[in-house]
């Protein structure tokens, strides 16, 4: 427990140092448009909370991420099942995906606007693209790493083909699928902000861009802070869920690193 407390204290100190440096730099620079002090950020946070815009924009972004992410998870997992159960499918699909994968989500924004106009739809598309690849790649790798020994053990205890899939292949793949979902959610959270900067009239990305145009820098920073905190919370809660769901994985990883 003591190393954990120590790590927590050091982490908090790091954040405190960041704010201290920021305060000093803001005072030296003395330009509230280029760099407002942290106190202005707090005031901005209060204002946007009170006038309801922050909650509204956050809700819009979250809704888009969840829809896009859901769409990506469904298609990626369906495609994994298809590639696993039908071999030629793998050879058919993998080169296409290898070709599309290097295109960053932001490069999809213009074409998404052309196809879907402004509003929620292009954001759904871009977040789905961002989440799709981590989910697909990790899940496919997960299906490949089943232990021969577990298959043998199950077979000599009487497991047939269906039982092998349900009791060996699936539980072997699930931790990697979950890792894919975790990374995918993080990617789509970043992508939604990118999409909203350009292609939306609500959401945290839109809020940042609008306030930049109005030179309301504290509100720009409020938007960035909320993006950071929500993203970190997503990752943290999913990592926590991971240790609850797949406790043996943590053990394996520890063994692997020592």
């Amino acid at each position, binding site marked *: 427990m003591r190393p954990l407390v120590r790590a927590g204290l050091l982490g908090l100190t790091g954040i405190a140092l960041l704010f201290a440096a920021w305060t000093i730099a803001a005072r030296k620079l003395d330009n509230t448009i280029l760099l407002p002090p942290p106190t202005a950020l707090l005031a901005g946070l209060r204002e946007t909370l009170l006038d309801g815009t922050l909650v509204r924009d956050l809700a819009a972004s979250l809704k888009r991420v969840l829809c896009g992410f859901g769409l990506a998870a469904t298609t990626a997992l369906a495609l994994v099942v298809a590639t696993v159960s039908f071999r030629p499918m793998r050879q058919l699909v993998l080169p296409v995906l290898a070709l599309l994968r290097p295109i960053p989500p932001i490069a999809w924004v213009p074409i998404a606007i052309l196809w879907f106009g402004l509003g929620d739809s292009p954001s759904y598309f871009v977040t789905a693209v961002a989440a799709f690849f981590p989910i697909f790649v990790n899940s496919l790798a997960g299906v490949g790493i089943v*232990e021969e*020994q*577990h298959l*043998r*053990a*199950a*077979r*000599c*205890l*009487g*497991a*047939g083909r269906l*039982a092998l899939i349900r*009791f*060996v292949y699936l*539980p*072997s793949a*699930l931790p990697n699928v979950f890792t894919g979902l975790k990374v995918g959610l993080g990617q789509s959270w970043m992508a939604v902000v990118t999409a909203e900067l350009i292609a939306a009239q609500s959401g945290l990305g839109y809020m940042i861009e609008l306030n930049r145009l109005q030179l309301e820098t504290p509100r720009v920073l409020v938007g960035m802070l909320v993006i950071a905190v929500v993203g970190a919370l997503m990752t943290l809660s999913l990592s926590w869920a991971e240790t609850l769901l*797949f*406790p*043996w994985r943590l*053990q*394996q990883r520890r063994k692997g690193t020592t």
Partner: protein
Amino acid sequence: MAHEQLALPSRQNTTPLPRPSLHGRGAVTLDSLSVRFAGGGREAVALANVDLAIAPGEFVAILGPSGCGKSTLLNVIAGFERPSAGRVLVDGGPVSTPGPDRPVVFQQHSLFPWMSALDNVAFGLRMAGQASTRARERARHYLGLVGLGDFHHRYPHELSGGMQQRVGLARALAVEPTILLMDEPFGALDAQTRVLMQEQLLRLWERWRHTVVFVTHDIDEAVFLADRIVVLGLLPNIVRGAFDVALSRPRSRGARASAAYQSLYNALFDLIRQESQKTFGTTDTVTAP
């Protein structure tokens, strides 16, 4: 690490053990069995022309140096690998697939890490069509037999290596097989735990008397456990000899002090040493004074 307790099957809190009626089943016959592996353009011979008849209820140890094909032999009986020539018969019928009449206890890491000890043991019973509550009840009983009744909710990564092997043994026993295949099951354990495991295995087996094929490279283990020891040789990988173990049953650790144990141990030691040296070229004769 707190040392493990190897509890005897406690009679007061478990239902009387229904001794599976084996009806003289569990005979294994290897009929001029050969296994070759093709790989990298070359063909490796894992086993050449092995003949072996194992009687129902017999405890046979397969002993030999690394590379002699002893695990391959077990894998063929288990149905994991196909013979290149010859046949494997179990109770007169040819073996084609793995089956719960002859489960395998592996060396390590064969428990399903996503299942509790209880569910690991219940797995074979579920596969046999038993309802989950009934299967768990039976599994609890078999965990009790290996002294792990209180550890049923633990996951494999929360158990020591020795405990994991006992869960593996309970998992194999739970399907009430006629043949038990054991592939160096205690090979990865520390010496103290290994000896305790051997004694526990004997106590369980002496009540059951199913056929056991036990692969090991440990001479002491083979002599202490088996009725008969089959030694596999290297280059060619053939049966180099079969030895009856003239130690009375039930055996206890005192058996190791007997003259019969000593002389058989020495004979096997010399034979295995001869075989192992084949992969060392002539080093031994050069350095001999």
